């Protein structure tokens, strides 16, 4: 069965197509051109057909290909024109919004108790406001658990409404701050007030960040030394962390050589964080300075197991 046999009679008589094998290209849609000679005069003789329904994809000769391309361009241009014209006249672009409209021509006054008499022009509206395009105010919510970057349990926080709706409320991390909910959380809220050194959301974030730090501690290679708190403070300051020396806890055994160390930092006198570091030598003669190999990255390492 030749592919020509599948072409409807109306098209086949005047269609010059060059049909190929069944295992034809991957295009599923293609153009059938009815009468190439007429192409220059009108572009309306182009038809799109699905290959499964009618026949197999075809390849055109180079000359005919060119004219077919021109025809297809014309056809698509005319289609686009028609489509754009339709859209503009029918207003198919709908606004999905809480729209507030107003009558362009107000309704005539009517007697009390009777219905207003509306004319066609009373249905001409103009848009006063799109409510959804206005920014939504934030919402106050009561946190039931610690949420990083937002707050701790028992705190009333003012957050974006979409955050509350999409993340916090469905997960049960926050509730509406009703009187009942506040009564339920009263114990935690009172404890929060009483405790001076409680961990705020930022303190908790700092703890997490410090747990992933790997310090670089450069020490003198020319002189003898014993590691003390000032060395650690300076090394931390070089990493961008400012701490007081009271917060630092050194290893129990005195350190005098380059090695891996674990140092304790107390945050708000409430939580101890273990921070790792590598001690290495630096010399007065800079050409002798060698950084230890295979150093872990500075930040975002997996935290130390306490």
């Amino acid at each position, binding site marked *: 069965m030749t592919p020509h046999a599948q072409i409807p009679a109306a098209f086949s008589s005047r269609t010059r197509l060059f049909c190929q094998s069944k295992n034809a290209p991957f295009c599923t849609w293609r153009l059938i051109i009815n009468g190439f000679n007429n192409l220059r005069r009108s572009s309306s003789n182009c038809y799109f057909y699905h290959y499964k329904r009618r026949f197999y994809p075809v390849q055109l000769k180079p000359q005919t290909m060119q004219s077919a391309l021109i025809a297809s361009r014309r056809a698509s241009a005319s289609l686009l024109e028609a489509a754009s014209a339709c859209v503009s*006249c*029918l*207003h198919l672009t*709908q*606004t*999905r*919004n*809480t*729209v*507030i*409209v*107003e*009558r*362009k021509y107000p*309704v005539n*006054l*009517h007697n009390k108790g009777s*219905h*207003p008499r*509306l004319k*066609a*022009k*009373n*249905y*001409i*509206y*103009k*848009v*006063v406001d799109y*409510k*959804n395009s206005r920014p*939504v105010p934030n*919402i106050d919510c009561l946190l039931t658990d610690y949420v990083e970057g937002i707050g701790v349990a028992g705190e009333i926080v003012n957050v974006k*409404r979409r955050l509350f*709706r999409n993340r916090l409320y*469905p997960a049960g991390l926050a509730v*509406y701050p*009703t009187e*009942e909910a506040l009564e339920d959380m009263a114990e935690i809220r009172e404890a929060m007030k009483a405790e001076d050194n409680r961990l705020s959301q930022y303190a908790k974030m700092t703890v997490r960040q410090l747990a992933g730090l790997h310090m670089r501690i450069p020490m003198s290679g020319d002189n003898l030394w014993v590691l003390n708190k000032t060395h650690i403070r300076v090394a931390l300051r070089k990493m961008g962390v400012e701490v007081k020396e009271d917060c630092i806890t050194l290893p129990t055994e005195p350190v005098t050589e380059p090695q891996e160390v674990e140092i304790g930092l107390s945050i708000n006198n409430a939580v101890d964080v273990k921070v790792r570091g590598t001690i290495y030598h630096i010399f007065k003669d800079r050409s002798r300075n060698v950084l230890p190999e295979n150093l872990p990255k500075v930040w975002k390492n997996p935290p130390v197991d306490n």
Partner: protein
Amino acid sequence: MSHLPRFSKLKSAAYSYVWSRDVEHLLPQHYKDRCIKFMTREPPAVHWQPISGRWKIDPKSGQRIPVQNVPIRVIYPEESNKGLWGGEGIIQGLLKKKPQTRRLPKLWMPYLQKRALYSEILDKWFAITVTLRTLDQIDEANGFDHYILKTDERDLNSKLAMDMKREMLLTLVRGTMYSDDTDKKQKIHNRYKEYMIPVSMFR
């Protein structure tokens, strides 16, 4: 023949109550009262802004003219009964950009989203088509259950909402929620007991 006030086309709702004179004596009085209240209540002005006051000054002539607020006609398709549109609907109107141009038909559609909403009384999650106005109202009412139980039927304007209201009230009255957890059950009972109505009202 209907024995109820009918909606005018400017004050339509998603559904209406109609019954004939033959069956009227079969219906309980509280049901009829509720239906008449629903049919006669003023709908909320969602898509238009009513002018307050009895009089206003005409800007052209400077004369005092009475204010007669005529609502915008809103269409509630059958789909609005399957979601919670919060009083929003489709506005079918005309648009005339310039005096010289023709007036052209225009539809304004509500912005609908499918959202997961949790009911505490039923202890279930529901995927419901809502508008942003509904979500705002839920926030205002401090929760989905409060919104459904507190809001007037005319403002809910959805069969789905009334079905849920019925389910919630029945669960509250029968006390079938949280059968395992007595503390939670008591808590939920105390939270929503103000909305409870006697069981005889359901028949």
